[in-house]
């Protein structure tokens, strides 16, 4: 049994981690949160230079041609760094949707640009309060034109191209729209996690290309793939939060001793570690299912997603609690992780939705033995 990342993958992970440490990504997160820029272009360029936008893109389309396992290790470091860049939108979502596509023209045209970081992509999916699923889209695709409205599109004001879910006949498929097409209107929205940018948008008879329109399953598959990658991001953020809490508890003295010597604090940290370990192990199975395009992917993705969402929420909130009053100040970094945990919990469907999906997937598959 070799249920572990390879040495090469771990080296890659270390390199990405070093980049974010050197660039002080957490400080950059705060700059974006407090400033007027919608993302950190300098950090984005460094990520592109390292080839991280090209990881899963085949060599024939200008990529590096590695697999999803490599993307998983990058995702964990993105999460640890709470990087203020549109990486997940462009790489996990838009790039993966196009790689999944059977439309070679779209691949040829867009993948090289995404790989080179010349274009930033995103996925426009949500339409109203509630959960985005594969069948509730009201946006319509007909005769090469797309019309409708999307809300809370991640990096919608940054992206050069949108992968859009829309109804085509009785199916809900995926379509591609260039951001500068006639009929596209984008309005930036204030975001709960100000280190990331979101937008609402409307499409009126916009030219759109078909990514996948023959089955609604394309959206489910994309969301499952993204769920594994986001789960790794959440695990990275959870571990960073736990480590912050531990460092603080070791250095803070009260009642004449380190607060980390009190069982009330130690047991809190132990619970964070338990939650994190379960999430990490479930993520590993998610990575295996994602990398092998295995039939277990729906169960594996939902399991990783649900446990990583739980872990990041618990670790980020208990990190604040461990810090006491200082943890709830603007000045301390705890809230940057708390905000990011909340954003990542909602971005591809909330916890209740994924729990329900998990049980449905277990019902459909054979019971694990």
């Amino acid at each position, binding site marked *: *049994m070799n249920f572990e990342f390879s040495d090469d993958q771990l080296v890659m992970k270390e390199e990405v981690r070093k980049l974010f440490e050197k660039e002080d990504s957490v400080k950059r997160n705060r700059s974006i949160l407090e400033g007027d820029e919608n993302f950190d272009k300098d950090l984005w360029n460094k990520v592109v230079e390292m080839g991280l936008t090209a990881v899963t893109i085949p060599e024939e389309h200008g990529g590096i041609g590695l697999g999803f396992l490599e993307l998983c290790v990058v995702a964990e470091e993105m999460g640890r760094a709470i990087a203020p860049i549109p990486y997940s939108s462009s790489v996990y979502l838009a790039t993966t949707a196009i790689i999944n596509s059977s439309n070679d023209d779209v691949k040829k045209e867009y993948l090289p640009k995404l790989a080179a970081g010349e274009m930033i992509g995103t996925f426009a999916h949500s339409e109203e309060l509630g959960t985005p699923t594969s069948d509730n889209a009201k946006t319509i695709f007909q005769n090469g034109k797309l019309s409708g409205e999307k809300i809370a599109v991640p990096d919608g004001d940054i992206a050069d191209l949108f992968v859009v879910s829309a109804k085509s006949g009785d199916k809900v498929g995926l379509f591609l729209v260039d951001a500068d097409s006639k009929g596209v209107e984008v309005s930036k929205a204030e975001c709960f996690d100000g280190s990331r940018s979101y937008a609402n948008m409307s499409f009126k008879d916009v030219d759109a290309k078909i990514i996948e329109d023959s089955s609604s399953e394309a959206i489910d598959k994309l969301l499952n793939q993204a769920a594994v990658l986001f789960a790794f991001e959440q695990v990275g953020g959870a571990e960073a939060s736990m480590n912050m809490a531990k460092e603080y508890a070791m250095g803070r003295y009260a009642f004449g001793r380190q607060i980390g*010597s009190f069982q009330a604090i130690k047991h809190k940290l*132990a619970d964070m570690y*338990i939650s994190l370990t379960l999430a990490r192990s479930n993520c590993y199975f998610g*990575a295996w299912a994602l990398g092998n395009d295995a039939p277990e992917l729906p169960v594996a993705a939902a*399991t990783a997603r649900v446990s990583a969402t739980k872990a990041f929420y618990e670790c980020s909130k208990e990190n604040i609690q461990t810090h006491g009053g200082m943890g709830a100040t603007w000045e301390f970094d705890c809230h940057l992780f708390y905000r990011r945990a909340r954003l990542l919990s909602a971005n591809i469907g909330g916890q209740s939705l994924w729990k329900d999906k998990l049980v449905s997937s277990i019902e459909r598959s054979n019971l694990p033995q």
Partner: protein
Amino acid sequence: MDFNDTAEEAKFRKEASDWLSANAEKKEHSRDVYRPAEMTGEGGESSALQDAKDWMTKKYEAGWACLHWPKEYGGRDATAIERVIWAQEESKYKVPGGFHEIGQGMAGPTMMLYATEEQKKQYLPPMAKGQEIWCQLFSEPGAGSDLAGIKTKAELDGDTWTINGQKVWTSGAHYSDYAILVTRSDFNAPKHKGLTYFFLDMKSPGIEVRPIRQITGGANFNEVYFTDVKIPDSQRLGEVGDGWKVALTTLMNERLAVGDASGVDFQEIFELTKESDFNGENAISNGGVREKLADWYCEYAGLKYTKMRNISALSRGDTPGPDASITKIVSANKLQDIANFGMDLMDNASIIKSDDKDDIRALFQGSLLGAPLIRIAGGTDEILRNIIAEQVLGMPQDVRVDKTVPFNEIPSGSKN
């Protein structure tokens, strides 16, 4: 990343599986476990005990007992990963077990470090062969989680020690042949410095074993009383006053031996929610029920894949993480909550007691009553959280008021 055996592992697995299929009966499904022919005796173990001894002897004679022990003491010199593979294969068969863990898993490894060569040759092979059962005389009424607070007294006169006192929670004392024992030989020394460790014959005069009836109704544990019990000094393990160090060796092996909590798990509650009626629908259609199922599945899967990560570490020759503590905390609490929720779904039907092992009610009822014991035995939830915080995360120990003062000045036990 894959789940495949290496060529060597596959070869070992085939050898194990070939021997098992020739010598044991395969389970038809996961609940198709070994059942003793007769359920006499207060612990319900009498025929199970002999069956377990005989199965161990059969394994011993074919070289499948105590896999990780050296060959000269009755083992196989197997690697850690081979031990895991054997356990995986053996779990597919209807074979008895549950009596040899303390001897082979805890007393044996301690003897290997501290006994004389002559003693090892005398006691270890019979322990491996399985006809002799060992128990662990550690906990006392005033010393459970705080084990170093024991008061059973050991006094040396010439070459013979005299033991007086009381032990408690001793699994299997009533059918054990030998025991490992921690005593206090110096009440004036600090708590951890005055302990001395022995092994002894459970048939020694002056030992009285009284069963403790647990909340399950069974009696697997005992109180053990010592009245002027004599132990030759040659049966001391480690130096006089060094018993705490020896006990830690034993306890470290206990943490490795403690695994998943047995009883209801995700599969059982999943099946139950598909079958039971809730407002005219199957319970699994209910949103609240589904949320709970999802949470338990995440814990179930998280433990399963954590174990696989540990096995991978063993397979590479690395030491696995200290995640046995996590496994026990999570699985024991999951067991308790699933049992409680399952009985809730059965509603009034769960109130009617069932002893029929094929009745799902008996399974949930038994699990609910057994869970509190599992959350305590082999390290309470609270002690295990301390272990995670201190040994995994490197956090400081609690401030202690009992480490440097003489033992006889420390308050202990219950004052109410």
